[in-house]
């Protein structure tokens, strides 16, 4: 009986093939890309010009308060694509074909999440540009801005794995879409992304203050516009990310084997 596991090099090569496939697929749907940019831009305009005037953020201007929040929210929403795309592959029979090939099974998920990460770099760049246009003025040194960008990307990458697990568990594109919003909406809105958590009722505030979205937003705020030190929330965010990866990578891989 020959070895039934593949080397790391083989896994990485397969992951690269899968990532290239996914990027080609996405880049050939320009209307899809445009619409995936439009939604977060609408959120920016909505909060900046409609709700923003009614939200008190103290000494910080609302647009400076908002942009780190909305950038993190966009990263989380962007991660929903991962699960959705996997359910579409399941439905089309592509997953069956891939699982019948002598490739590394983890490569399907590694490649997919990597391709989605690349797309999220683009989305976040667009968000930063839109933010600057509507008055977002980061004041911190360049290395901190770079660190904030990397932290948000890491955040979206980890959430891609959660989304992959949800998608592979529900298996149906429509259900995956609804299921995605069910966990993503509370997580992004019951957080410090759009309003200071002080204004929330006790139990919601308690949730919001430990919510990894809040921690990430607080870290990005500190890294970009200053104020309270970003060190503590940044480390707490990283701890969350490591923990979430440790849980959801095995869960997603298991769901893929069974799908």
């Amino acid at each position, binding site marked *: 009986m020959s070895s039934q596991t593949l080397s790391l090099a083989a896994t990485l*090569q397969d992951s690269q093939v899968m990532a290239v496939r996914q990027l080609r697929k996405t880049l050939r749907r320009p209307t899809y890309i445009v619409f995936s940019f439009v939604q977060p831009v609408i959120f920016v305009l909505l909060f900046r010009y409609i709700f923003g005037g009614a939200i008190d953020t103290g000494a910080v201007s609302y647009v400076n308060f908002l942009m780190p929040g909305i950038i993190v929210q966009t990263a989380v929403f962007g991660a929903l694509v991962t699960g959705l795309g996997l359910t579409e592959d399941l439905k089309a029979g592509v997953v069956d074909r891939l699982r019948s090939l002598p490739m590394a099974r983890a490569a399907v998920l590694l490649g997919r999440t990597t391709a989605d990460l690349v797309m999220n770099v683009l989305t976040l760049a667009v968000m930063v540009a839109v933010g600057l246009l509507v008055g977002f003025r980061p004041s911190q040194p360049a290395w901190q801005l770079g660190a904030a960008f990397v932290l948000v990307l890491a955040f979206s990458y980890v959430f891609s794995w959660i989304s992959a697990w949800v998608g592979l568990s529900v298996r149906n594109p429509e259900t995956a879409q609804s299921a995605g919003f069910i966990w993503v909406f509370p997580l992004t809105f019951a957080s410090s992304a759009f309003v200071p958590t002080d204004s929330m009722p006790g139990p919601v505030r308690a949730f919001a203050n430990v919510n990894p979205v809040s921690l990430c937003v607080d870290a990005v705020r500190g890294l970009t516009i200053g104020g309270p030190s970003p060190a503590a929330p940044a480390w707490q965010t990283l701890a969350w990310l490591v923990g979430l990866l440790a849980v959801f990578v095995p869960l997603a891989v298991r769901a893929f084997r069974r799908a």
Partner: protein
Amino acid sequence: MTQPDCAVEVDDLAVSYGAVHALAGLSLTVATGTVFGLLGPNGAGKTTLVRVLSTLLRPARGRARVLGHDVVREPLSVRSSIGLAGQYAAVDEELTGRENLEMVGRLYRLPKAEARSRARDVLERFDLTDAANRRVGTYSGGMRRRLDLAASLTGRPPVLLLDEPTTGLDPRSRQELWTILDELRGAGTTVLLTTQYLEEADRLAQRIAVIDAGRVIAEGTPGELKSGAGTDVLRIRLHAPADPAAAAPLLEDLAATGGVEVDGPTGELRLRVARPDATAEAVRRLDLAGLSVSVIQLAQPTLDDVFLSLTGHTAESPTGHTAEATPVKEPA
């Protein structure tokens, strides 16, 4: 490396979805280099067997081996030996035909140049060279299926598993696919194909297993299965104004079973015969009685007749099942 005599060995395989037994102790072997047809109605367990053999589904009981590799203990070796084409064209619409095939080649861990040249070869063979650089989204249904089959051949696997390869194809595409499968048989590839089409199994397969409710209920060459269904069928039409009903009693004792049927609208007389001289004898008797024969034909039973005699219902209407053999739904 020499291949074992049996490319596929399945022993007492059982798979259940909840309370539904998709496979209920199925056993079969497929000789290396042959085309084996798995014939059965919807829900008989055909797709489930293909999913077990392609390592997509773990059996609850029993063993399955592909080229000597156990599907549960040596899945990677099995995957290196097989090509799978399912009921749907599992190809990426946004990619071109060439990109789809090169990707599969790379996933069989071929070097880039080799994946490229294999893709070129199969595109040529499946008559897709002109469409190679077009997105699959622009392909017709027949072209997609051809590309899907091409993808399953890119790794040059010694064993091909084809799940209803022609379902949903127009007659011309089906004919093209049959021609390709004939070539594969010539090239020594072992093929296990499932089909609901009796005609297709007869046309393509050297051996056929008829399966129903997760079990093999008959197995043999197409010829053996037909002769197993009993007897040949003699069909006679008389010249007008002869009365077929008057002719029936003359032929009654030639019928092996079931007597002589008279088809109302056409006046055709049908009887199952066992004696080798039945045709000559029938002509002689009708002639003596002054009844003139217009058409006389001795036909082997069709596979549909085989299915009917084995299961008591035709392949197209599994509703004829009795209570203890409720048709089993396969998962979509």
